[in-house]
């Protein structure tokens, strides 16, 4: 059955843009946390 908004996922462009905003926030949060963890590990035992 074709999705009501005519897209494969069923999201409207507005919904997709809103979701992407929150997705990117979460992703950048993950990257920031990982960066901090790697900086701490580097201070403990550098790998190069």
């Amino acid at each position, binding site marked *: 059955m074709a999705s009501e908004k005519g897209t494969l996922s069923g999201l409207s462009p507005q919904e997709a843009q809103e979701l992407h905003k929150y997705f990117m926030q979460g992703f950048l949060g993950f990257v920031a946390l990982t960066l901090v963890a790697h900086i701490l590990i580097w201070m403990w035992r550098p*790998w190069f």
Partner: protein
Amino acid sequence: MWRIWLLFDPRRALIGILAFAFAMVLVNHFVQLSTERYGSWLNEPAAMSTQ
């Protein structure tokens, strides 16, 4: 880039991404635990004292 959510159902995509990330992190931690340089953070005393 947001158009990706017009193609993939967000619920399945998020579950897939989280499962992949969890597996990746799990593997990475065990790989590090198996190395000589980093594999000691569980059994050595808190190495805060800088030698």
